[in-house]
């Protein structure tokens, strides 16, 4: 082995041996259901949350559909057998007292956010971001309600929305992701415990970025978030979702459903930084992230833009999709997916073109290191009615080391002869020339690689709101700095 290779190995080793920086856990009393899932549990979840009958009905329909469904096997993933009867389907922090102001929030919970670097106060004061803090299953604190309310914007936990705005929720819940959509969506529909609800009225542009911070806490509980965002004609919202979870040995299941509805001239920007616990460097533990995210550009000239930075989770199964139903609708998907150690990711998007002159763009950047497997899987479906539609897709993969894998599985179905669809993909490693060039300029190897990776992902990171861009860049560095292929 040459000294250079030795050095590379050393750097690689250092990086791969890096422990999860955000691994810590808080001890808060939890309300828990017994393990397992049956009709009674579903009824109990609904009951404890005082839900109206139609919600229970929705849950039960989903539960019965789920019982008959089979787990999807088509992804390029090796998923260990999950015993769905060995999970706890409801956990809620015990309210110690009624919360009127920020001071009333459980100090332990506040501390968690502080450790994560985003204390509520700071966010409230500095960033101007309203936070719907989701701690396990029930939202503990929602801020900025008042300011938003003045403009008619609704931003609240979905449990409140069910109670306060039943008409809206009833109309749209399950309208984009039907309860029978897939195995995990059905499971979520049956047992979802909380999540965010956003409603932007006609002509209103949200003055601030709405953000929900997700955490999984209690050992062995799955988290089933349900997010519903509705933007009326001419409205705009940018929604941020970020997650990080404490270190655990047992696998935890996360099966969320996100539904977006954009009416005429409306725009939704949905950004995610996903950093669930990925498991240790032997591949033990880690979160299973099986998420169904879908938006619909319902009205003409509407726009939905997904941006995601995926660095965490032991297994990621996630395809944020857009149905372009309105004419002249626009959809975008920007993704950076990083896998290291024994992580597996099968992620991508679906662009379903129905309306005329619809346009979609897919930019996907995969980075794999260690023993990980990273797949892009995407569908571009141009229906016969989608006259003059356009799609442009780029899927690049970067391999760091020779024990990992990078895969690309694009599906392109075209039924319209006036549309133009282009897809291209490349797979490569960090080139010696690039490294040499940067090192010649006096950068050490690590910084050089960092710079190359950041440059590689820039196209996507640029799409993130400021608050997220910094965190995302940090996450990239943590996950990969120094890795050399």
């Amino acid at each position, binding site marked *: 082995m040459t000294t250079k290779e030795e050095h590379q190995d050393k750097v690689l080793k250092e990086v791969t041996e890096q422990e999860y920086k955000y691994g810590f856990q808080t001890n808060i009393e939890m309300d828990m259901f017994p393990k397992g899932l049956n009709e009674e549990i579903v009824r109990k979840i609904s009951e404890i949350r005082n839900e109206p009958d139609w919600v229970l009905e929705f849950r039960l329909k989903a539960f019965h559909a789920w019982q008959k469904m089979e787990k999807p096997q088509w992804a390029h993933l090796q998923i260990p057998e999950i015993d769905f009867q060995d999970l706890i389907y409801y956990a809620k922090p015990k309210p110690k007292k009624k919360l009127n102001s920020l001071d009333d929030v459980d100090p332990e919970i506040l501390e968690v956010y502080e450790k994560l670097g985003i204390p509520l106060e700071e966010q409230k004061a500095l960033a101007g971001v309203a936070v719907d803090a989701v701690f396990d299953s029930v939202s503990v604190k929602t801020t900025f309600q008042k300011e938003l309310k003045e403009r008619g914007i609704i931003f609240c936990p979905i449990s409140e929305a069910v109670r306060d705005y039943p008409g809206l929720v009833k109309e749209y819940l399950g309208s984009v992701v039907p309860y029978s959509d897939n195995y995990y969506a059905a499971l979520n529909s049956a047992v979802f415990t909380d999540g965010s609800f956003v409603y932007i009225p006609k002509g209103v542009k949200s003055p601030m970025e709405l953000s929900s911070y997700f955490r999984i806490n209690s050992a062995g509980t799955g988290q089933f978030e349900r997010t519903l965002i509705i933007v009326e004609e001419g409205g705009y919202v940018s929604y941020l979702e970020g997650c990080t979870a404490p270190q655990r040995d047992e696998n935890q299941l996360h099966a969320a459903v996100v539904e977006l509805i954009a009416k005429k001239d409306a725009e939704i920007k949905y950004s995610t930084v996903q950093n669930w616990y990925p498991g240790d460097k032997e591949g033990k533990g880690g979160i299973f992230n099986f998420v169904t995210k879908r938006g619909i550009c319902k009205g003409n000239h509407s726009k939905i833009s997904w941006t995601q930075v995926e660095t965490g989770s032991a297994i990621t199964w996630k395809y944020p999709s857009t149905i372009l139903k309105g004419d002249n609708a626009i959809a975008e998907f920007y993704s950076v997916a990083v896998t290291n150690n024994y992580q597996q990711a099968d992620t991508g998007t679906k662009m379903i073109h129905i309306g005329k002159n619809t346009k979609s763009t897919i930019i996907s950047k995969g980075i794999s290191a260690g023993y990980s497997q990273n797949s892009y899987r995407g569908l571009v479906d141009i229906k016969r009615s989608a006259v003059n539609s356009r799609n442009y897709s780029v899927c690049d*993969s970067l*391999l760091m080391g*020779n024990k990992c894998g990078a895969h690309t*599985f694009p599906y*392109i179905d075209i039924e319209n002869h006036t549309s133009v669809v*282009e897809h*291209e993909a490349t797979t490569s*490693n960090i080139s010696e020339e690039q490294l040499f060039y940067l090192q010649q300029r006096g950068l050490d190897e690590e910084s050089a690689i960092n710079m190359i990776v950041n440059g590689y992902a820039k196209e996507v990171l640029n799409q993130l709101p400021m608050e997220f861009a910094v965190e995302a860049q940090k996450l990239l560095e943590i996950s990969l700095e120094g890795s050399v292929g």
Partner: protein
Amino acid sequence: MKLQDNIISHISQNKEQLWQEFPDFVVTEKEKAFQKFQQKGLPALKDEKWRKTNLKEFINRYYHPGFNKIFDKDDLVDTCLVPDLETYNVNLINGFFAGNSDLKVLENGIIIGSLQATSKQHPGLVKNYFNRLVKKSVNPLNQLNTALFADGLFIYIPENIKNFRLQLTHKLDAKVDALINVRNLIIVEENAEIDIIQCDDSNMYRSHFATFVSEVFVKKKAILNWYKYQNINNISALFSNSFYQVEKEGQLYTNFFELNGKLLRNEQFTDITDSDVKVDLYGLYLSDKIQQMDNVIFVSHSSGSSYSNQKFKGILDDSAKGFFNGQILVKKNAQKTNAYQKNDNILLTDKARISSQPFLEIYADDVSCSHGSTTGQIDEEALFYIRQRGINKRDAQLLQLYAFAGEIIDAIRLKELIDPTKDLVKKRLNGELDNCEDCILQCAVKP
């Protein structure tokens, strides 16, 4: 599932009679394949690779399963000749090797003839290779083929033999609607070279459900060039599945033209086992009416420092459907692999549809791999430009389509084939090929 039941009961009842002409090692494979087929059945829409290909109209039809040699052996005409090209000619009719004798050993040691006859006369040779590549296939049609084939072509090219050109006419010519299974085995020994020019042909009036499965071994430094022209009738389905194993410094080149047929499906599986291999796979599919043309391509790089390139282009008119699934697999130790893949399509109407799936699966880091897929229409600006020069709209369109197809035609390495191919493509784009009742290459040269 009439066809499936039909096949299973036919084999179960007539096993002994069907397999009696084959030596034990073939029968063993046939038995295993039959069991697999019984388990899996015919491909269905739920199978990942068949989601875009509906076999409904075929599997509910009655096809005569037990086919015998029904033609007169001496009644053979070499109809399909390429002008100015000397070739050794072979005819397969309904899967049976047709010739003066079933098996010939040429002066230079080349063995050519019926696979069934070879398996009895040279069992050692056949046993080494037979079903080695096909048995792992998950496509049930391959198991059906193994279980039910009655004959096919065997070719053995000994070491250092070059300049052997074979012209193969494969005709589906049943008197009733029939199930036809052809099995071929091609072995190209070290440093040998062979060109195969193949025409798939059919009569005009019967529906055929045909599988044409080939196992091909390209040894060290050997070269195989394979040209294929497919032109069958509008009620038949032809599934051509080829399995290649290419050894060190070997070269494989295929160029398949799918010109006419209700359903044409070419599956090609290439295993690159060693370094410095060169694989080029080209294809052009031209479909109209309610035809469907599929290409399923799989290139596996088991070893590094090799090169592969896939290039497939299609023009789809009327209500035609197309399916392209291309996959490059680069295994862990296959460093320094260069692998490329491209699929381009033109849709001419709003009823035509294409599904394109260019896949990459890569486990080695020091590789250069890319894939691309485009789908579009005739370029209006270019059309305007051409029409400005006084060319009418139809001709201007044809000119553009012809230019689009040109890239695949230009990839032909055998210069004598270029002109007939150009002619064929022109005629096809003009809609004239339907009337061709002779072998397709004959139609090409007719005025």
